[in-house]
C-alpha cells in the first residue's frame, strides 16, 4: 500500500475515506476538510478520529464540566488546575500533591487482568508527568450481581490486575471501593486513582516550548496494542461483537512502568526536561498534538524514528497505537546526551523523534514524505463540542414516588438481630479483606492508614509527619434516585471520610461513569450530577482539580446507575495524630449528627427487599462542614480514641466495622427519641460514631456544642460483644467472633 501523503491528499480530493468506521460523524469529517482546506490524509484522519472521540475530546461533557471552573471556590491551595494531566494542590511546607482518578471500564470487561493493570499504569503515568513521585493508589470498583458467573470472571481478574501492576510498581494501595449491583452487569466500573508528591518547584507541565528543542520518545517500543482502542473501546458499546470481533487489548509491563517512574524522576530532578507528557489514550497522536498545542505551536516529527516492536505497523497505526509504558519529553539539544545517559542507566530505550518548531503546524514525516500537516490545536483542543439534548426521564417521578415506607421492617429483637447480621454479611458491606489482602499496603513505609479505614493516610514528610488523607465514594443507587443529590452525597461521604481520620479536606477529583450521552435521560443524569458536585464543592470550598468522564457504560438501552465517583484529598500536619476506627478497650461511644427515618436507596432496602425507590437521604453540606470541623479539631486536640463515619448500613454497620477492626465489643442503647430499627439502620448523612476517653468526654461535648453538632452518648466501649441494651422489649447482642465469621465469609465464598 502506498503512503497517503499530504501532497497526494491535495491531488485526490475525492478518494472515499472510512471516517464512519473510525467513529467520525459526517459533520465532523466535513469540519476536518474545512480546517485543512483539503481531505485529510489517512494518518490525519486517524489522528482526528481518535482525538475527537468522546474519550479524548470530552465533546459531550465539556459544556457541563465548565461549571467546575466557573463555580470554583476561591482557594490558595490550587497550584495547577483542571486542564493539565492532573491537578496540583499545595499541602504546606513547600510540599505539593497531585492526584487524579481515571476509568478503565470497557478494557477491564474485555480482559479483566490486563484492563485493570493498564488502568493503574495509565493513571500512574499521568502523575509522574506532573513531576511527582507516585506514592499510593486506590481502586474504586463496581461489579454486577455477586453470584453472576460473569462477575466471577471479571472480579478476580480485575483485582489481581490492580494488584499485579500496583504491587510491582511498589505503590501501596490505600483504599478503594467494591460495590455490587445488577446495574453494572456487563459494564463493570474499574476506576483507578493515583496520588503523587513533589516539592513546589518540581511541577512540570505538558508543553513543547523552545524552537529547536528535541522531542524524545522513551520507554517501551511501539506495537499494535489497542489500535483504535480509544475510539472503539471507549466510544462504542461492543454488545454486538462476539469474542472474535473484540479489539486488541493492551498488555502492561509493570517492570517497565517502574523503570519509567525512576528514570522520569531522575531526568526531571536533574533539570533536563522542558516539557513532558505521558502516552495514554490515542498514544502519539495525543502526546504530540497536546505538547505542540500547549507550547510554541509547532512540532516536526519523523515517525520512522519511533522504535517498533512490530515492524509491519503502518504510519497510521504507529500514530494511534496505545502501547503502554511510554513517555514523551521535550529536551534541549544541550542536555540530550545527559538525558539519554540516564535512560540507558535504567535500560530504557530513548529516541529523538523530532523537534519543536515555530511553524504553528504539527508536521509528521514518514520516510521523507509528509503525512500529517495540521494546526495542533484543532486536533488537541478545538474538537467538536456537543450540547446533547437532555431531559428529566419520564420514569423519575414514579421512581421517587415509590417510597420505601411500605417495606416490612423488623419489629422484634430477634428480627432486628438477624437483619443487622444479614447486612453485615451482605456483599456490599462484608469484609473487603479478600480483595485488599491482594494489595501491598506497606511498601515505601509511609502508609499510616489503609483498608479498613475511612480514608487512606500517607505520610509525605518523615521529619515533620505532614501527610495526606484520601477517600473515594459514590452510591449509585442514591444517584439513580436523584443524580443532583447523589453526586453531593458521594462528595459528602468522601469529605466526611477524610475528616474522620483527622485530615482537613482540601481538593476533589472525580470519575463520572454514565451510560450513553446520546440518551437524553442519561445526559440529564450527567448534567444534574455535575451541577450537584460543582455546587457542593463551591459551598464547602474544595476545588475540583481534575477527573475523567466515562460514557457508554450501558448494554442495549439499559444504562448503569449514574456513578459519579468522587475522591477527596485532605491534609494533616502530623499523621501521628490520625484517628483510627478500631473500637478501643474503653471509652464513651458517642453518635454525632442527627438520625432521621431515611431508607430510600438504603442498603437495607436493597439487601432485604431488593427495593430501589423514594429519595436518598437528605444532604446538608452545612452539617457536613460542622461535623468535619469537630472531627478535625478532635484529632488535633487529641480528644478522639476512635472515629468512624456512618453511611451504608447505618449506625449498626459502623459499630460492626469498629468492633471488628478493634476486636473489641461495645455496649450501646437506643436513644429515647428513636425507634431501634431507625437508630441502627437509617442512612442519614452528616453522622459519625466516635469514642472518647471518659475524662475527655466533657471537652469533646463542648467542642460539639461550639460547632452546633448534635452529640448523643450511645454507650461504652469494651467487652467481647456488640450489645444493644434494649430493642423492642429485650436486649440483643452479637459476639465479636460471630460478627467476624459472618463478615469475613462472604467474599471468599463467592470468589475464592
Amino acid at each position, binding site marked *: 500500500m502506498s503512503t497517503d501523503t499530504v501532497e497526494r491528499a491535495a491531488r485526490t480530493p475525492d478518494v472515499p475515506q472510512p471516517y464512519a468506521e473510525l467513529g467520525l460523524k459526517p459533520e465532523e469529517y466535513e469540519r476536518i476538510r474545512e480546517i485543512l482546506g483539503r481531505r485529510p490524509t489517512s494518518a490525519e484522519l486517524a489522528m482526528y478520529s481518535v482525538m475527537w472521540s468522546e474519550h479524548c475530546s470530552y465533546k459531550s461533557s465539556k459544556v457541563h464540566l465548565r461549571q467546575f471552573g466557573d463555580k470554583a471556590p476561591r482557594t490558595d491551595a490550587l497550584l495547577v488546575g483542571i486542564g493539565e494531566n492532573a491537578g496540583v494542590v499545595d499541602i504546606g511546607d513547600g510540599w505539593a500533591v497531585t492526584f487524579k482518578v481515571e476509568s478503565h471500564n470497557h478494557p477491564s470487561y474485555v480482559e479483566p487482568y490486563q484492563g485493570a493493570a493498564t488502568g493503574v499504569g495509565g493513571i500512574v503515568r499521568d502523575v509522574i508527568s506532573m513531576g511527582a513521585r507516585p506514592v499510593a493508589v486506590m481502586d474504586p470498583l463496581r461489579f454486577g450481581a455477586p453470584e453472576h458467573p460473569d462477575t466471577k470472571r471479571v472480579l478476580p481478574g480485575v483485582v489481581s490486575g490492580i494488584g499485579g501492576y500496583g504491587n510491582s510498581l511498589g505503590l501501596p494501595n490505600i483504599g478503594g471501593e467494591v460495590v455490587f449491583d445488577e446495574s453494572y452487569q456487563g459494564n463493570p466500573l474499574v476506576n483507578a486513582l493515583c496520588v503523587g508528591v513533589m516539592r513546589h518547584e518540581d511541577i512540570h507541565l505538558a508543553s513543547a516550548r523552545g524552537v529547536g528543542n528535541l522531542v524524545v520518545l522513551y520507554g517501551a517500543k511501539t506495537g499494535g496494542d489497542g489500535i483504535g482502542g480509544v475510539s472503539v473501546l471507549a466510544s462504542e458499546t461492543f454488545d454486538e461483537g462476539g469474542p472474535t470481533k473484540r479489539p486488541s487489548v493492551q498488555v502492561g509491563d509493570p517492570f517497565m512502568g517502574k523503570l519509567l517512574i525512576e528514570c522520569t524522576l531522575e531526568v526531571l530532578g536533574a533539570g533536563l526536561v522542558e516539557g513532558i507528557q505521558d502516552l495514554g489514550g490515542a498514544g502519539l497522536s495525543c502526546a504530540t498534538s497536546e505538547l505542540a498545542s500547549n507550547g510554541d505551536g509547532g512540532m516536526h516529527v519523523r515517525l520512522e524514528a519511533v522504535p517498533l516492536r512490530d515492524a509491519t505497523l503502518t504510519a497510521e497505526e504507529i500514530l494511534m497505537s496505545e502501547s503502554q509504558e511510554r513517555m514523551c519529553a521535550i529536551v534541549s539539544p544541550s542536555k540530550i546526551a545527559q538525558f539519554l545517559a540516564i535512560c540507558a542507566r535504567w535500560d530504557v530505550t530513548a529516541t529523538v523523534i523530532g523537534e519543536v518548531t515555530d511553524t504553528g503546524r504539527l508536521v509528521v514525516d514518514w520516510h521523507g514524505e509528509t503525512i500529517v500537516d495540521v494546526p495542533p490545536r484543532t486536533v488537541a483542543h478545538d474538537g467538536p463540542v456537543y450540547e446533547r439534548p437532555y431531559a428529566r426521564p419520564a420514569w423519575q417521578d414514579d421512581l421517587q414516588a415509590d417510597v420505601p415506607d411500605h417495606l416490612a421492617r423488623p419489629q422484634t429483637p430477634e428480627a432486628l438481630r438477624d437483619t443487622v447480621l444479614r447486612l453485615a454479611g451482605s456483599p456490599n458491606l462484608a469484609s473487603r479483606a479478600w480483595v485488599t489482602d491482594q494489595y501491598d499496603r*506497606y511498601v515505601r513505609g509511609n502508609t499510616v492508614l489503609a483498608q479498613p479505614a475511612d480514608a487512606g493516610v500517607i505520610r509525605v514528610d518523615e521529619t515533620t509527619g505532614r501527610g495526606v488523607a484520601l477517600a473515594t465514594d459514590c452510591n449509585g443507587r442514591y444517584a439513580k434516585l436523584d443524580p443532583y443529590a447523589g453526586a453531593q452525597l458521594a462528595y459528602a461521604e468522601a469529605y466526611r471520610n477524610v475528616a474522620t481520620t483527622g485530615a482537613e479536606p482540601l481538593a476533589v477529583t472525580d470519575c463520572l461513569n454514565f451510560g450513553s450521552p446520546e440518551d437524553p435521560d442519561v445526559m440529564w443524569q450527567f448534567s444534574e450530577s455535575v451541577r450537584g458536585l460543582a455546587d457542593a464543592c463551591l459551598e464547602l470550598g474544595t476545588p475540583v482539580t481534575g477527573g475523567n468522564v466515562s460514557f457508554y457504560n450501558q448494554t442495549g438501552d439499559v444504562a448503569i446507575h449514574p456513578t459519579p465517583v468522587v475522591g477527596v484529598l485532605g491534609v494533616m500536619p502530623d499523621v501521628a495524630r490520625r484517628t483510627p476506627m478500631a473500637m478501643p478497650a474503653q471509652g464513651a461511644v458517642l453518635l454525632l449528627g442527627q438520625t432521621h427515618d431515611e431508607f430510600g436507596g438504603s442498603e437495607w432496602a436493597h439487601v432485604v427487599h431488593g427495593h430501589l425507590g423514594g429519595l436518598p437521604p437528605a444532604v446538608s453540606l452545612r452539617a457536613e462542614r460542622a461535623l468535619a470541623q469537630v472531627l478535625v479539631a478532635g484529632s488535633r486536640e487529641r480528644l478522639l480514641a476512635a472515629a468512624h463515619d456512618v453511611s451504608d448500613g447505618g449506625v449498626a454497620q459502623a459499630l460492626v466495622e469498629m468492633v471488628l477492626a478493634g476486636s473489641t465489643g461495645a455496649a450501646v442503647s437506643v436513644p429515647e427519641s428513636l425507634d431501634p430499627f431507625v437508630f441502627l439502620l437509617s442512612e442519614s448523612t452528616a453522622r459519625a460514631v466516635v469514642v472518647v476517653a471518659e475524662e475527655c468526654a466533657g471537652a469533646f461535648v463542648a467542642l460539639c456544642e461550639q460547632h452546633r453538632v448534635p452529640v448523643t452518648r450511645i454507650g461504652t466501649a469494651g467487652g467481647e460483644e456488640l450489645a444493644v441494651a434494649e430493642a423492642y422489649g429485650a436486649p440483643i447482642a452479637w459476639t465479636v467472633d460471630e460478627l467476624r465469621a459472618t463478615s469475613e465469609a462472604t467474599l471468599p465464598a463467592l470468589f475464592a
Partner: protein
Amino acid sequence: MRIGVVTFPGSLDDVDAARAVRIAGGEPVQLWHGEGELRDVDAVILPGGFSYGDYLRAGAIARFAPVMEPLLAAAAEGLPVLGICNGFQVLTEAHLLPGSMIKNDHRRFVCKDQRLRVENVRTSWTSAYTAGQEIVVPLKNQDGQYVADASTLERLEGEGRVVFRYVAGNPNGSRNDIAGVCNERGNVVGLMPHPEHAVDALTGPGTDGLGFFASVLTGLVAA
C-alpha cells in the same frame, strides 16, 4: 556500621530496608545492582521487590547481576547477608540458601500481618530474639511457598537451620511451615516476611522487626 542495601531496577522495599537500618542505629549504604563492588560494607540486605521484573522466576535474573559476584564471595567468608522476600528468592536462585519458592498454594498475592516463631537465635540476624519468641511482621508476596526435597528438609530441620516458622496458620503452603532459613554458618539468612515493615508502630503492625537490624549491628560491634 555500614549496612549495604542492594537496589535492583525493580527493587521496591530498598527504601524501607534503609530506613530500618537507620532506625536501628546503622548507616545504610546503597549498592547498585550493576556495579560489582560492595563498598566496604559490614553486612548486606537484599530487599523485597521484583528485581528484574521477575516474569521468569523471582530472582532468576538478579542472581546473575554484577553485584552478586562479590556478594557470593563475601558471604562465603562470613559477611552477614539478609534476603527479604525477593532477596530470599535471589539467595535461593544463587544457591546460597537451599530450597526454592513457588507460587502460593492459593495462587493469589497475599498481604497480611503474619505471626512467626523465631526458631534459631544463633544467626547474625536473630541474636536479639529469644528462642521460640513469636513476632508479627508483614508478609506480602505471590511466590512465597517454600519447597525443597525431603532430604534437604530433613537436613535443615536436623541442623536447626529453619530460622522462622509460620504460626497461627500457614499462609502459602510452605513445607514444614518454613518462613525463613539460614546457611550452615548462620551468616546468610533469608525469609519471606518483611521485618523492615515492622520498625515503627505508626506505619507497621508494631516494632517486632527491629530485632533483625539490632542483631546484626550488635554482632558487628562484638566482632
